């Protein structure tokens, strides 16, 4: 049970090890507080959808499970969207379009497909919580690095702005790609001897992709170049 929970935080960190959910990771991490807000919002959706999908796992017919999952997830995203709008309008403003886009965050659909649809409720909730915390931690780390280097502040408080000119490029889009690349390189370096490094980004991360089973593109995209 404990392993289920800690799995998502370190060993299978969704962002840094499985490389899922890259869009929000790059887009909202211009400030630490935004990363935290996004992480918490996604965690709430992840835990709730995992719980409900796990409860319904024997009722949902296999053939229509993906649309069913998407509907459940979209329902919770709408709830979170309304709550954030009501109680944290500043976060809503900062996250903007990326808040409704939690619906298409691969992490949530991947956990629904890979874990919640096969396991009882309690482990599913723990799995969602662990993955959510892993996601939040990665976003917080990215946000802190970018805010510190790009604006010289951390959670809005001045840190290095006094004696170091902020490098604005880090809060611009290129900085996002760069910091993310360096973080993954660091994780690869630290875990180099423990095998199983994610070397290549297979199409959307097939192993986590819910449609990989039925996906005809899987084999063809990978071999597409060689066929000619």
């Amino acid at each position, binding site marked *: 049970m404990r392993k289920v929970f800690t799995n998502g935080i370190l060993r299978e960190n969704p962002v840094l090890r499985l*490389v899922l959910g*890259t*869009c*929000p990771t*790059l*887009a909202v991490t211009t400030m630490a507080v935004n990363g935290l807000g996004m992480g918490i919002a996604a965690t709430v959706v992840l835990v709730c959808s995992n719980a409900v999908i796990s409860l319904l796992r024997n009722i949902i017919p296999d053939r229509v499970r993906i*649309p069913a999952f*998407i*509907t459940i997830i*979209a*329902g919770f*995203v*709408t709830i979170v*969207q*309304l709550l954030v709008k009501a109680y944290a309008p500043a976060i809503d403003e900062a996250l*903007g*379009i990326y808040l*409704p*886009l939690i*619906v*298409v*965050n*691969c992490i949530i*659909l991947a956990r629904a497909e890979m874990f919640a649809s096969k396991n009882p409720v309690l482990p599913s909730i723990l799995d969602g919580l662990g993955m959510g915390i892993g996601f939040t931690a990665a976003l917080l780390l990215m946000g802190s690095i970018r805010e510190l280097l790009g604006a010289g502040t951390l959670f809005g408080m001045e840190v290095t702005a006094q004696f170091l000119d902020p490098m604005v*490029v880090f809060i*611009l*889009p*290129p*900085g*996002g*790609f*760069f910091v*993310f*690349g*360096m973080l*993954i*390189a660091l994780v*690869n*370096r630290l875990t*180099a001897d423990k095998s199983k*490094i*994610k*070397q*290549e*980004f*297979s*199409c*959307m*991360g097939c192993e986590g*992709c*819910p*449609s990989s089973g*039925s*996906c*005809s*593109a899987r084999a063809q*995209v990978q071999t*597409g*170049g060689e066929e*000619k």
Partner: protein
Amino acid sequence: MKLLAILLSAILVDNFVLSKFLGICPFLGVSKRLNTAVGMSAAVLFVMAIATAVTWPIQKCILDPFGLGYLQTIVFILVIAGLVQLVETALKKFVPPLYQALGIYLPLITTNCAVLGVTILNIDNAAADATFGFAEAMVNSIGAGLGFMLALVIFAGIREKLETCDIPQFLKGLPITLVAASIVSLSFLGFQGLVEGIFG
């Protein structure tokens, strides 16, 4: 004139991949070869245009008049998922050559955040600017799709070169790809202010 400004800014200034971070997964996933990059982005362009053509009237004629705006996320994602399925079936039956070219990428597009993103952004734009109508929304979607294609094609070219380079072990694969993406994104920053410069 306004339409041209929207088109240019969607392609270059507010590039979906490089400055809005939408559709990063396919951007990193299928940009290894030029032909797959073109196929994928053509499919995205196609679905973006159709999705906007369908979701815009739904928002304006059904959700807004009945005060159902909060259902936007659920309705849009289901409409897009159904639409992708429908387009795939229709193409298979009526336009086999196009299906041969785009078919394999279509199932991947449902969970592509760029498609849902463009439909929601269009509605947001309309809320902020009353003159932003259906024509503007369509042009914006097509521009976003073209921008996606441009980013993927440029990046596929870079990655083909990258493969023959000698890179330190821990940077191989994804990290060096992201650093390359960072540099491409940096070059797109140069377009900042372009639209205001031409049309302003």
